[in-house]
Every structure is written in C-alpha cells, then in structure tokens.
C-alpha cells in the first residue's frame, strides 16, 4: 500500500471528530484519487465509496458528487468535482 495518501487521510482525520480507531480506507491507485481523499474524506470515511460499488453508472456517480456539493454544501471546486466523478466512474463504477 502507498503511504502518502494514507498520511493525507490521517491528517484529515485528526481534524475531524473521529471515533474508534479509524484507519485510512484504501482506494484504488489511479488518477484523481488525491482529489477524492482531499475532498470527500473531510466529511465521511471513504468506505462509503467502496461499499457503493461497483453498481453505479456515470450518471449516478455524477449525481452523487453533485448532491454532496449542492445539497450537503461540500466546498468542492468545479475542477475537483469533475476529477472526483471521473475517478469514481472509472474505478468504482459499472464496468470501469
């Protein structure tokens, strides 16, 4: 496993009120993973991504990212939102 993303996640966790011994949740190493870790993990652990796979198509993953921004107020830039959706579609979507 890579250690760099793990450290990023740990830093985020230190800021959030974490319970038990939350360990970094490993996501597939692919372009866009840094954006997912830097944005999504601020509000929730990344096991949500893994357990919600691999059944979502592009439209559904894009809707999920949009919901996090528009409904839940996640402060994610438009550029990052695109990177995140692309990463999720390719790595945690239907048929890659």
């Amino acid at each position, binding site marked *: *496993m890579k250690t760099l993303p793990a450290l990023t996640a740990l830093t985020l*966790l230190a800021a*959030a*009120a*974490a*319970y*038990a011994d*939350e*360990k970094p*949740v*490993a996501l*597939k*190493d692919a372009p866009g993973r840094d954006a997912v870790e830097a944005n999504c993990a*601020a*509000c*929730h*652990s990344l*096991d*949500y991504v*893994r*357990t*919600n*796979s*691999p*059944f*979502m198509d592009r439209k*559904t993953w894009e809707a*999920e990212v949009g919901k996090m921004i528009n*409904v*839940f*107020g*996640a*402060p994610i830039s438009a550029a990052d939102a695109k990177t995140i959706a692309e990463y999720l579609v390719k*790595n*945690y979507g239907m048929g*890659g």
Partner: protein
Amino acid sequence: MLDRRRVLQGMSGSLALLPALAKAAQPAFLTSGLPGGEYDTAVLEALPGKKPLIRLAYRPPNYETPVSYFNTPVTPNDAFFVRYHLSDIPERIDAQTWKLSVGGDGAATPVQFTLADLQKNFAPVEIAAVCQCSGNRRGLSDPHVPGVQWGLGAMGNAVWKGARLKEVLAKAGLRKEALEIVVNGADGPAVDKTPDFIKSIPVWKALEDNTIIAYEMNGQPLPHFNGFPARLVVPGWTATYWMKHLITVDAWTKPFDGFWVKSAYRIPVGKFPVIQHFQTQVTDVNEPITEMVVNSVIASPAEGHKVRRGEPVDVRGVAWDAGYGIKRVEYSTDGGKLWREAALGKDLGRFAFRPWSFRFASSSPGTFKIMVRASNAVGQTQAESLIFNPAGYHNNVIRPLTVTVA
C-alpha cells in the same frame, strides 16, 4: 451459495488492491445479494462499549447487527445497530448537565428539563418496540441504489423506558394550533452548510400514548451510540424519527421545512400498503416514510447450512410490523409451493419482534429452499417481489435461504 455474478463483482472491487488475494467467499457475517464492494470492505469491529458489529462505515459510524442476534426477540444493547447521518457526533454527553429544551411557536410556555426531571416528574412508561432503519436491506435492492448498503441487521428490538412525549409537551403548554413536533439531537454536520439532521412528526403521532422520550433501554441507560442520554421512541415508525441524543423538541404551527423531512426519507405515493401517513408533508409524487411494513428474518440456520439426511434443523427468527400485530408466520421448504404455519413464541407486545420457529428434516438428499412469510392482523403480508424505490426502503420481499441435505 456463491453466485458467479457476485464473485466477479467482488473480484473487480478487490483485485487492484490485493492482487495476491482472490476473494474466495463472502464473509459469513454478510448476507448474499449485497454490492460487490461491500464484501471487500465490511468487517466485524467493536465500537467502545459494543460487541463486534458489521462495520459498513467508520465516519459517520454505521454498524449493523449480525443476524444471529435475531435468534432472540430482545436485542442486547451492546449488539444494537448504530446509525448516524453526520460525522460531528458528541464524544461524550454528561448526564448531569444535559438539558432538553421544549418550545416552538406551538408551545405557550417553553421549558427545559434535566434528565432527573424526565425520570422523576413524569410517570415512567415501558414499551417493547422494534427500532428499524428505513434503509434496512437497502443493500439487497435489485438494482442496487446508492446509500448505506445495509443487509438484514439495521434493526433491533428493545424494551424502552421513558416519559410520554405528550406529557412533556403539555408542560410546555402545547397549543391546539400545533401541527408538527420538530426534534433535534446533539449530533451535527462536519461543515456548516450541511443540513443538520432534524426531523418532525405529526402532532397526532407525538400525542399517542406509545410515543416516549426514552432514557432506558433493556433496563440500562442508553448506550452512547444509541442516543444517550435520551432518544425519541416512535413505535411502529421507522428509526429515522427516533432522534438520538435529543436536545430540542419544538412544536410548530406550520409544516417543518428542513431537508431531512422535505426531501429525504420519502417513498413514492401509492406504492406501499401504508395506513398511517404524515399528511402535512405529502406531495403529489412522494411522502415521508412512516410505518414499517410487515417483515421477518431467518436468524438460524446460516445461509448454506448443511445437514445429514434425517437430521433435524431448528429454523428460528423474528417477525414484526408497524404495531398491528403479527398474526401468522408461514414457512415453505420447497421453494414456495406448500406453506405451513410456524409456531409463534412469546408476545412481548404488538410493536415488538415476535419470535417464530419450526423444525425441518428431510429423509432424502437435496437442496431445500426455506422461505418464511409473516402476516399481520390487518391482512398485510410480505411482498413476493421487490417494490422498487430509489432509496431502497421497505424491502420486505420473502427471502429464501438454502439448506443442503446430504
């Protein structure tokens, strides 16, 4: 028990991370039919004060009760499922300084109560009731839908003790114009713009004798992760209304307009056999989820259980509904052709899990599809096929379990 599609899904989720470890089988604590990614991710893990539960998410914490706990009708506090929406949850609440504020524009005399006030100034009420997440079994939706991918165990039954909400509201001078009772807990979002988890119930539901503010669960204070020191208990309705770490109760004279009632936790109008509706929140297309639908679960044996010819298997589990009362539990061992009645166990009350059991044995070998179907006192029974809805609610499809006789 492994079906090929799921094995392939599981592999596609894990190969990139663990090239050397091909997933051989689903973990025994997970049921079949969940998204492939869940089999690679969920583990058994104990939160502080809890037994090992199925961890679906660290933060906010979502932990499911393993199905073996449904061999008995009362779910132990330390095995009771844990569900939070937002990740800023209090690490500890001091029972000495905790206060419940009761007010709103529908209350003439706003008032605060300490935990001791709730315990001493109101007649204690005890009720056994099922607390089931609206999304229990979401992970079994076909097709799958986004959300926490619950299997069978986002539920439990406990004996709750507390003060009647209607008596608490009376002390705050509930006005006859009050329409909804709005409740909030001490947990909150990680970022300010996320809508806080706030819910409302119709005033008529709040005034029912069985709706209580519970400070005890199975004779003990509530576990922290189940809402210490007090939570709302709305027997018959899904757990979304059972606000944990309750801190405010407000009577509103107009419909509550928050996200978690207006937009979330909604079911399509007219699709489910529901008798009680949240009238002030119904739109042309959808309405808030309210009552639980009649359902049952097989707690033992485990899926894929193997026995020898003639060897008896005790099949056990629980059934429940919205409080109309379980009337009958039937079972089939031939895939649904012939149905017989299972024996019903102790009746802990109409809102509680009702245990049932039967014994199965076969003198000839084969694979037997065990099915169980619960019906209630108002003629409702479990669905034969999924009533699909986008949030994966109300899944009470009859769920076969395979036993092999060799």
